[in-house]
């Protein structure tokens, strides 16, 4: 017997087989462009100015941050419109619920697919960025599972949010007030110590900050036990997100 969660996962995989080419190109292009533009262009200015950022050439500071930020963006893209579509438009969840699959299987199968997508994207970026010579430690390979954890820490609560919305207007709010500020201010492009005090507090509370710190430690090989704290912080977001999503899905589908 195939586990019901795997059967729900298979649906998303079957669909992805039809659409992966498009997402592979666009999903990889954006972070590589950022790496080239900011890393080489801005990085050149920084080299002649302060020299390094947190002791790293700028592009080596930037690359792990982009890896984490890309995981966040892929996860959020996959847990907003596709979730709403599966509930309201294509009603895929409803079709699944006319089989032995349960609400929990449906949620876990979709979340599993998002993890797969994020992992694939992270691996792609890892390879592409390697051509810029930005990875100084082989430990960076572990940044792929960390990227998956970052993705899940965002996807689970966002799925709860998506399942509780009646229209997709809420998504543009999520992007403008959540995703874009996080992308800019949570330690991807510059250390959060550059921010005014109160903003540092906000930045440090975001999962992206902790994801970025972890990816940077793996990329440079400077790991310590303290990093387990960052993993735990992401795991808490995932855990609470799953509980909320489970509740929101039941409320929406079982009625």
């Amino acid at each position, binding site marked *: 017997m195939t586990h019901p969660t795997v059967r729900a996962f*298979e649906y998303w995989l079957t669909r992805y087989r039809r659409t992966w080419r498009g997402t592979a190109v666009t999903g990889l292009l954006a972070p590589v462009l950022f790496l080239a533009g900011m890393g080489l262009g801005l990085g050149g200015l920084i080299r002649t100015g302060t020299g390094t950022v947190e002791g790293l050439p700028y592009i080596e500071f930037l690359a792990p941050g982009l890896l984490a930020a890309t995981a966040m963006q892929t996860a959020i893209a996959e847990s907003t419109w596709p979730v709403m579509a599966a509930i309201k438009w294509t009603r895929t969840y*409803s*079709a699944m619920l006319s089989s*032995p699959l*349960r609400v929990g299987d449906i949620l876990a199968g979709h979340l599993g697919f998002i993890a797969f997508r994020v992992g694939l994207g992270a691996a792609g970026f890892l390879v592409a960025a390697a051509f810029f010579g930005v990875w100084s430690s082989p430990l960076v390979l572990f940044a792929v599972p960390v990227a998956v954890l970052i993705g899940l820490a965002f996807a689970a609560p966002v799925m709860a949010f998506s399942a509780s919305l009646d229209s997709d207007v809420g998504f543009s709010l999520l992007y403008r007030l959540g995703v874009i500020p996080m992308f800019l201010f949570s330690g991807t492009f510059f250390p959060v110590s550059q921010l005014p005090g109160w903003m540092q507090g906000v930045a440090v509370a975001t999962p992206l900050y902790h994801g970025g710190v972890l990816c940077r430690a793996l990329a440079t090989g400077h790991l310590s036990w303290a990093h387990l704290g960052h993993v735990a912080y992401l795991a808490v977001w995932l855990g609470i997100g799953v509980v909320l999503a489970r509740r929101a899905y039941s409320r929406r589908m079982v009625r």
Partner: protein
Amino acid sequence: MAVDGIDFDVAAGEAFGFLGPNGAGKSSTMRMIACVSPPSAGELQVLGGDPRRDGSAIRARLGVVPQDDTLDVELTVRENLVIHGRYFDLPRRRAGARADELLAFVGLADRAASKVEPLSGGQKRRLTIARGLVNSPELLLLDEPTTGLDPQARHVVWDQLYRLKSRGVTVVLTTHYMDEAEQLCDRLVVMDKGRIVAEGSPRDLVARYSSREVLELRFAVGEPSPDGALDSLGERVEQLADRVLIYAHDGDTVAGEVHRRGLRPAATLVRRASLEDVFLRLTGRSLAD
């Protein structure tokens, strides 16, 4: 509350219908039978199990054809069936074989590799029916199976449902089409405002709630109104905007009597009473919503 105190039994091998206007509670009842919405109170057994406890196990033996086709337009016709078979844990190869078998059954074998998007409404509905059959269900639930289809497509769907019925599949359907209920249902309940207002075979219901025949009279505009002149004819007289209906055992005799009373309707029609007459009598002529 969508339904209130409804009570019904469906026997194995039977085709059972829920007939009612929009908002009568048919779809809510179907969601409960499909083990999606748990009943808030009362007792419900589906295929011998309790949906609140064994929902997943019962759903494994059900086929569901929802009112709106929840097909995946990104996938091909055949992939839609295979993936649904996988939800039921059919091994991939078996799911594929079952998909081909069902596509032949619903006459879509030549569209197997097509995307879903370009299919006609009738083809999509047949594909949804095929999908509902992928696990060889003991009980097939259809929510308004032919709503929105053109007459040809409806007859094709009816033909397929009739064949399923003759193979012994238990069928439960909702409809607001009287002809559909008469064609397909061995037994049905009429629902209105969340309650069951009548139950029986289509023939029983007509016998119980209507006369054998209906005489329809149309009067030309400007003719003296027949008000009062038709009273006491037949079993019941109903005055509509454009015609008068007289419910009677023998329509022709009443038509003769109408003429004897000196009334000259522009058109006279005697027809057998149908489920529609029963339905309108029980649920009223005004719009539900």
